[in-house]
């Protein structure tokens, strides 16, 4: 039972992020979508796609993205289960940054 998906996506300029987010928001089990453009190239753009819901089907999201001409480069975060577990900082993380 996936509740949140964070994907690194490469997409053409058209369809734009508005159309992409609308299309994803209509998928079953999806309650909200957020798309942030990270980088714009001459023909393509790199986007961070965040999908939240109660029971998200990764396959449906991937299929819809591919239908719209986009490709999933990587799955950057997944939250599944009865509740969303947020990332926690550990002492190792802070020492690694020093």
């Amino acid at each position, binding site marked *: 039972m996936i509740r949140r998906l964070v994907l690194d996506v*490469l997409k*053409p300029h*058209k*369809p734009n992020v508005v*159309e992409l987010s609308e299309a994803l928001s209509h998928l079953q089990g999806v309650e909200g979508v957020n798309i942030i453009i990270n980088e714009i*190239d*001459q*023909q*393509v753009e790199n986007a961070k796609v965040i999908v939240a819901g109660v029971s998200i089907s990764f396959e449906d999201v991937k299929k819809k993205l*591919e*239908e*719209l*001409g986009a*490709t999933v480069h990587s799955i950057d975060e997944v939250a599944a289960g009865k509740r969303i577990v947020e990332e926690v900082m550990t002492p190792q993380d802070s020492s690694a940054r020093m």
Partner: protein
Amino acid sequence: MKFLDQIKSYIKISGVAPISRRYFVMNAFDGATTVLGLVVGAYVVGISSELWVTWSGFGATLAMGLSGFTGSYMAEEAEGAKKLNSLEKSMLTGLKDSVVGKASRFASLWAAIIGGGAPALTGGVCLIPFFLSTKGLFSISLAVQISVALALSIMFLLGAILGRISNRNMLFHGAKMLLVGLILTVVFLALKLT
């Protein structure tokens, strides 16, 4: 409704709207000019049968429609394939089955329909008086006058459309297009006088 939304979406994604607008104006102008030339030319030689103008005009209109359709389709299909290939290289994946590929294929067909339909439509409209003349509704000379008036009106309208698209004076651009038709008509009439 869903079908219309899909068409709108394909037009938006492919960016075919400005191209099809150009095809429409160019080919519609061709259609009106060709039939105007045919009608004025027939008048100069002194036509005795409206059937001659109707059928030769119909033949020319059909040929222009077919030529516009195939020419626009082939040109747009090649351009679309080039654009899609370039995008596929950037995306490092095939896009033929995606909405981008479908929009590209639709764009070729859309441009062809506009490119072929526009001259057939304007040419056909200019021939209506001759068609009605074959049914005995008009005399040949009245059919010539109405047909010339229709062709010149279409030219003016096309110029006005261009003026509207470019946010400039519609009347001035309409008059510019009309001038071309008037030059053609005057040249033929001068030939008749000589």
